[in-house]
């Protein structure tokens, strides 16, 4: 199994490198602007907090108000709620759909399945390489945040930063995992894997953020994971029960479903 994981990481090393650079640079730039924004926070806060609730929700990250002079509010609204998840969801969904689906499409999956490795082991190895690939990008980003935050006057505990990054990473990865599970399960879910994951993630983000503006959205958004995603919880020491339940369902039920489906399904 480790051979498959190392092979994936080695084969994808340049892509992982560029994703890591992209994520690190983006976070670095946002952290770098904090001192300038803090100095004008009063006016900016007024502008943001006067926005309609739904529009403000797109940036507030689950908080009632935005206070850009406060490091935690800044990190939550500018990095962890939207920017980082959006970037990471793109990585997770493209890799989740491709790590198995692209191999099947290119017929290289047959080279692997012609060897004495069970479909279950292959599937688990692919899932772990997806996690490992994603973990490298997230870890490099976390290190950047931990190193640069104090440099730009954001004195937030390392544990809180690590927890918020881990939470955001697992949440973002979950959408890639949905695409991966759908690719593996059967030929019908395979065809809609990418579309479903994108709709569920980005569609969910928009709807969850706009739900405050439209009362009819209040009930349906309860079925969207972004409704429960509040990175602020990690900073304030609260358990994000809804998000944890969602992630547990995706990773546990998804893995079970993928294994059962992939063991018996025809390779196209």
């Amino acid at each position, binding site marked *: 199994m480790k051979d498959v994981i190392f092979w994936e990481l080695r084969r994808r090393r340049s892509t992982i490198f560029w994703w890591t650079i992209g994520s690190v640079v983006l976070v670095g730039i946002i952290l770098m602007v904090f001192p300038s924004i803090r100095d004008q926070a009063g006016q900016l806060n007024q502008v943001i907090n006067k926005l309609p609730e739904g529009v403000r929700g797109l940036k507030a990250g689950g908080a009632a108000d935005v206070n850009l002079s406060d490091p935690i509010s800044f990190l939550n609204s500018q990095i962890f709620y939207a920017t980082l998840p959006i970037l990471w969801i793109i990585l997770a969904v493209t890799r989740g759909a491709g790590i198995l689906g692209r191999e099947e499409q290119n*017929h290289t999956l*047959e*080279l692997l*399945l*012609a*060897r*004495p*490795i069970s479909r279950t082991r292959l599937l688990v190895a692919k899932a772990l390489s997806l996690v490992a690939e994603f973990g490298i990008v997230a870890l490099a980003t976390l290190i950047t945040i931990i190193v640069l935050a104090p440099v730009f006057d954001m004195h937030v505990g390392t544990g809180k930063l690590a927890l918020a990054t881990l939470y955001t990473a697992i949440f973002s990865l979950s959408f890639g995992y949905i695409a991966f599970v759908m690719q593996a399960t059967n030929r019908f879910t395979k065809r809609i894997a990418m579309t479903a994951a994108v709709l569920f993630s980005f569609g969910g983000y928009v709807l969850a953020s706009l739900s405050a503006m439209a009362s009819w959205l209040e009930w349906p958004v309860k079925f969207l994971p972004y409704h429960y995603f509040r990175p602020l919880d990690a900073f304030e020491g609260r358990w994000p029960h809804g998000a944890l339940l969602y992630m547990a369902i995706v990773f546990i039920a998804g893995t079970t479903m993928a294994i059962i489906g992939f063991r018996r399904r*025809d390779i196209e």
Partner: protein
Amino acid sequence: MSGSIVIKKLGKTYPGSRTPALDKLSLTVKAGEVYGFLGANGAGKSTTIRLLLNFIQPTAGRARIMGLDCVTDSVATKRHIGYLSGDVALWPKVTGNELFAYLGKLQQRDNSEYLAELIHRFEAEPEKRISDLSKGNRQKIGVIQALMHQPDVLILDEPTSGLDPLMQEVFYQTIREASARGAAVFVSSHNLAESQRMCDRVGIIKHGQLIREQLVKGDDNLGGLTFRITLTDPHDVEKLKADRAIKFLSSEGTTALVQPKGSIAETLAVLATCNIQTITTEQLNLEDEFLEYYGDGA
């Protein structure tokens, strides 16, 4: 069940299709035998290969490789198999050496000496990235990865596609060696001259059904004297079919192909009892055999 590959009434109907892609296929390939699997596009060759490798699930019947069931013991069967797909698909950004090392680890069998010999024999360029190789050189990498662990069963789909005549010769020689070592070789091919040259036996598949098996090497029909007779009376075709003194091969309308079972004189005596319009002799080859079954444009 004996034989390295044993297929019994194997069938596959794809979801959404009413007609089976493979219908009750039964055949056996013995250890050391090279079996050619011939058929037109869509006849069921690839479906058979994909079933043997458990890439797809059968809807009927079963197949065994080295005594192991292809579905329930799929992983164990793969320890014995070397596989080359029709349109060889390899990861473009890796080198041949990286590919061999990776697949060797997955195969859990170290045959580095034989691998080096194959690389030398096929004049492969394993230090180059796959994407930098020509089609022929990629095919060499594909052939080598199928052969490198000296498997007991080789399943090859159009193996010489893209290889130049010199390399084809090297390939035939390598297959002969594998066969002499006791490996069963199952080759799907469109190249009839190649099959006639390489195979001990061939099976012709049409519309998912095995319609004929034929010895290529040995004492059977191919290469033997064959009479092509055009008869004036259609009933004479039936008469010839029933006659045990001759070997009746096939017929189309009032034209029949027959071969002597004993002496030529005995055969001529049988033919003399029919109303013959024309009679010619020929040496039947695999191409004639194939066209005999596919001659109706199917």
